[in-house]
């Protein structure tokens, strides 16, 4: 059984993820005036139409191509010694430290502590009528699922087939799909929590919501 409290403690010890920024292609690199410790922004705007902060420019065959930050964070390492040099594709040019937000921490905890049931194919998914009614009236956490239970209706090309739940017994803690929207194959549909862990998870999440201080 997963120890949720120790998981939270381990996240607290390192409340960030470090992501290497690699050269997307070969070329001569010129850094864009950023320094180690600088804050950078990821793509923003309603449609992510505004690119992130430029970290460097790699010129290949007289074609200067920007390398932008893909998430917000702080530049932890910047390999300035490469300035003006030719780099191979995949060379690490910087390390971006992204501090976890409250929602991201909750998501990590849930992903690790819940048992995910994923979509077998790209289709629209619905709960079977009985479960759907229960979810709408009392919320998803009122539904307990067991292995072999007929839980979903898979709707694809106007053809509807039932989908059987396979996995451990528990309550539906999270629902990851929306009605009338296609879910890709492999994406989680629900997160199931064993009954004995519910209290512990809820406690940890409440702590995160109250105590977590976002670094940015």
């Amino acid at each position, binding site marked *: 059984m997963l120890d949720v409290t120790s998981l939270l403690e381990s996240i607290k010890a390192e409340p960030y993820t470090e992501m290497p920024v690699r050269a997307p*292609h070969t070329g001569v690199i010129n850094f864009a005036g950023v320094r180690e410790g600088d804050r950078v922004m990821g793509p923003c705007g*309603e*449609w992510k*139409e505004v690119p992130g902060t430029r970290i460097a420019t790699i010129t*290949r*065959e*007289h*074609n200067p191509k920007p390398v932008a930050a893909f998430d917000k964070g702080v530049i932890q390492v910047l390999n300035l010694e490469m300035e003006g040099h030719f780099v191979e594709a995949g060379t690490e040019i910087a390390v971006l430290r992204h501090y976890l937000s409250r929602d991201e921490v909750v998501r990590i905890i849930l992903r690790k502590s819940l048992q995910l049931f994923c979509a077998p194919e790209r289709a629209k998914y619905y709960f079977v009528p009985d479960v759907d009614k229960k979810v709408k009236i009392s919320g998803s956490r009122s539904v307990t699922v067991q292995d072999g239970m007929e839980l979903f209706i898979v709707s694809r090309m106007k053809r509807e087939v039932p989908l059987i739940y396979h996995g451990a017994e528990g309550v539906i803690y999270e629902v990851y799909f929306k009605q009338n929207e296609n879910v890709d194959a492999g994406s989680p549909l629900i997160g199931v929590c064993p009954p004995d862990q519910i209290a512990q998870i809820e406690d940890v999440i409440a702590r995160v919501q109250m105590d977590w201080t976002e670094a940015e």
Partner: protein
Amino acid sequence: MEWDKQLQQLSERLSYMRDIFPEKHVEDMSLLGLQLDELRQGIARGTVKDPREGIESLENLFFFIECKLEDKLTPMDKVRIVRHPQRVCLRDILENVYDNYTEIGGQDEHTNDPAMLIARAYITRRRGKKVYNQSVMVIGHEKGHGEEFRNGGSAKPWGNAKAQHYMQVAETEGIPIHAYVFTPGGDPVEDYPGAAQQIARNIYEMAGLEVPVVAIFSEGGSGGAEAISLADKRLMFSHGYYSVISPEGAAAIEGRLKRGERSSSELIERCAADLHLTADDNVRFGYIDRVIQEPVLGARPYHFEFFRSIRQEVIRATDEVVLSVRGPASLRAMALRGLRDREINLDDMYVRWNLSKKARLRLVEKRQKHFLRLSEGTYFSGRSWWKRVTDEWSAKCSEMYNKLKHDLYLSKRRSVSNALEEANAELDILKYRLTAPWRRMRSAFNRTPKPLATEEELTALSEWDRTQERGDWTWVSPKAHEDRAVTCPNSALHGCMDLWAPDLYNEFAGVCTTCGHHFPMEYQWLMFNCFDDGSMSEFNEEVQAGNPLAFPGMDERLATAREKTGLRCACITFEARVEGTQAVVAVLAGAFRGGSVGAAEGAKFVAAAERARRKRFPFIVYCHGTAGIRIQEGTHGVIQMPRCTVAVRRYVEAGGLYLVIYDTNSYGGPVASFLGCAHYQFAIRSSNIGFAGPGVIKNTTGRDIPPDYHNCYQALARGHIQGVWDRRDVRTNLKQALLTMGGRNLYYR
């Protein structure tokens, strides 16, 4: 309590003045404020012996200062007057100018677009004891009486569609249209039917409306105003404005401001003055026929005398329009011409407003010719008087020759050849029937095998057609000479590989080999690769863009553009052939001032449409790119919208095939008029088409728009354009379009 109402009115007058003159005439404002406070306190304390006298003398002081400030009004002050919430609205006019009315385009917010108000109204006139109720269709923008849902008078596309519908109703019923323009501009939303597309449809519709149309301007903001203002008579309130762009918008462009930045009030004032947007300016230019004088510092709903002026002027204008096309000049027409002041009460003079069929045709012809004549002399024609005379005569001779050739000779020949074809077809059937027994007998005795050549033709592989091969282009972009790689903007999405510029801009014709993205190319690429080699002959090349408003710095900018591009204006007109089919072509080159359209471009476009009509050729417009109307030309630019649309309508109604091809980015007035009104519009892939660009939409409405909002496929999905073409197939597709869209009645046939 007795004097409170009058004091309150004075207080409102003072706050109105403060709004109109922000941080200006401070001494006058403080004097009035001081006097008003003193009088109010005096009345409250009872120290003023005669409050009536005190209020009267203060009212006189107010009037004196208002008159003084009236003489000092700047164009920007007039813009503020027009925008003020106390300004008269269309509902006030309906209440006070017409004798009765019924709103028919919805009520208040219960309509598809509350900014566009439609009403059936009537004006009662008397002749002796007889009373006449003369019906009119009132169409206009409403800003007030529910400001929260009126969208500031900016009509959405469906509001303009509603206006178009009721224009057609008025035409069916044969009643005049009174169009009241109270809009800062059209709403740039691109949902169906699309802002630009609908404004273009409205202008096209009005260019041929067979009923009198009178437009009255208070706030005439560019395309939104043009959607309902192509009229036989255009009147304007003396404190109104009619402009291609708001002073703030012009200041943002002149000051080269980035998104979110605000321009200084001095720059805005200067731009308002430079745009020449007042009523007097527009009367001088000839775009407005008459000014309706307003009370000092602008009309407000309590100026009842002003409503009487409007009533008299709209009646006069409608009478004049009707009498001018009804036939021989009547005494009433002479009376209207002779008596310009209030010597005549038009309520007591009756003129029937319905027109005979012939008079309706004369009305349309007169309106169209009036618009075609506008803005002449606002550009450098570049032709000597001798060339002008010879051109005119050659056009007349050509017209006569073509009339003789097409209307007399070819039409008669066609009739004869049609009759012969019919007779031959009948003969063929007769022959077939008569020889049937002989053929049956021959086939029974003589069963010959299929010739070898036919069999081989059916079974062998076909020959490689070299003419279909791509990549051998007549004109190659200078960008192909650069030794560099180019990244496709879709590379993150589709994983497109970098392309070497000499390949991309030469063999690939600027098309990404992975995703098909079309990189922008020069206007010459399509010109020289689409039309037959050596078939192009340019005309009117000497016409040159000018600076009719003497806009500061514009002469230098035009000189730079001329030097950079080698063009005299953004429009290039020529005759050319597409696989043997002769056509008149107009190109809007994005390289010259962003392809913006001013008086010179409009003149060339009108001349090209006229030439295509005269010569019975298809008329093709290649819009390489346009940023809209050239704002530095003010109303000289914006008038090209109705003017060129009239030229297009005349051409299309004469039987021509008008076809528009968009490339790169096409926005603004041209798309919302003479380009957007085409029945056949196509776009080169990766082009953008719309009413206002993303920056303008953000600045005017505050809305963010998705990155692909103006993409050609969106325009295709909402029915603005009829197809998206690959650049490499334009020549083939154009030929195909000429073959399939050109019916038997089209000239080019």
